[in-house]
């Protein structure tokens, strides 16, 4: 298996990095290119840029962000938020992103997963699943999608998803630890790589998530401070997690 991955997640709205407990009370904390480059220098294995405004406000800034990031950053990155068609996704990849992440659009129309996989290759298609209490939520976690999380994960795999980005909504921003029970169930249910998200508060939390998942998404634990990623990597190494040497 490839090495476990640490993936800082940058929430973007209107072309700026924003923060809040995700989805709420957003405030501007910087430029996505500068912050992305700084995380890359600090040893990030990949980056995720999520346009948190896109689905609700129908904003289409993902291509511009992808294009600017690709000029500066030479590690892989995923762009999500507001991608509703193969054309949307292709534009983001042509701009230099490696993967796209889809969420609400594929809950509305699951056949889109296969269309994306056929055109872009399965490795480029990340399906983001926001979940609480074993059920899938959509539209920035504001609606119950009336699906069982594990069943939906299996369906995503069958339809051609390349990776699952699974966020435990009730843990998100709480720093109380990843939902290991959920991640364990998904490990057994699918053979795709799974990116764990929601709840990272300590190196021990991240190490535990990386025991069952292939990657950990890092958001509030980093506080938009690349130096924290450096120290987290050191702590993880001392806990025996085999991270890549980024030099």
């Amino acid at each position: 298996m490839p090495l476990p991955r640490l993936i800082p997640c940058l929430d973007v709205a209107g072309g700026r990095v924003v923060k809040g407990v995700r989805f709420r009370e957003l405030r501007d904390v910087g430029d996505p290119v500068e912050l992305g480059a700084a995380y890359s220098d600090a040893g990030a294995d990949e980056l995720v840029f999520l346009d948190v405004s896109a689905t609700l406000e129908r904003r289409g800034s993902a291509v511009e962000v992808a294009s600017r990031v690709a000029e500066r950053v030479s590690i892989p990155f995923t762009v999500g938020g507001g991608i509703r068609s193969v054309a949307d996704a292709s534009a983001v990849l042509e701009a230099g992103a490696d993967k796209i992440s889809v969420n609400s659009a594929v809950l509305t129309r699951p056949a889109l997963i296969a269309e994306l996989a056929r055109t872009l290759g399965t490795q480029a298609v990340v399906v983001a699943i926001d979940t609480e209490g074993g059920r899938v939520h959509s539209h920035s976690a504001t609606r119950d999608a009336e699906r069982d999380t594990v069943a939906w994960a299996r369906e995503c795999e069958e339809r051609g998803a390349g990776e699952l980005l699974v966020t435990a909504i009730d843990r998100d921003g709480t720093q109380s630890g990843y939902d290991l029970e959920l991640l364990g169930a998904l490990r057994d249910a699918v053979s795709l790589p799974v990116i764990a998200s929601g709840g990272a508060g300590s190196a021990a939390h991240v190490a535990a998530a990386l025991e069952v998942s292939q990657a950990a998404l890092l958001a509030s634990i980093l506080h938009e401070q690349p130096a924290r990623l450096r120290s987290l990597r050191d702590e993880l190494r001392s806990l025996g997690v085999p991270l890549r040497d980024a030099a």
Partner: protein
Amino acid sequence: MTVAICAYGAGNVRSVELAFRRLGARTELAEEPRSVLDADLAVLPGVGAARSAMDGLRLRGLDHALRERAAAGGPILGVCLGLQLALDESEEDGGVAGLGLVAGRAVRLREGRVPRIGWAPVEPNGETYWFAHSYAAETDAAVATSEGIVAVVESGSFLGVQFHPEKSGAAGARFLERCLSRA
């Protein structure tokens, strides 16, 4: 130094272009055979599906141009799907004929999580690069492996890598720099 990057409708062309430009190379998007034949280094990038990629190459006459370049000993770098397309065939999608620049075939990964996504060390050089693939080469032309999977193939003037040097940070840049200095 001019680098012609085959532009045939596949993704990751821009990433490859940007990576070479960071190293000071002059890049050109090659959509017709002449550019492929004239450049100091031709790059066959690629992500996604083998069949549509081969169709895209044929449509633009780039398949013949790459064979001609290889026969004349001109350096070619194949990246990820670009490596797989250089083989005789791929078992993807019920079987897809490749360019036949390198004897061998692309077969589906049968172990571990698929797609195989992430950073993994490559032996013998010991560097760690980023991979994202569901198929891998089976060939006698392998010169490096990663976890037992073919990572680099070399045959005549063709060099193919399963990983993405354009997305492999400092290690990837070092690799591309060596490609440029050999070309």
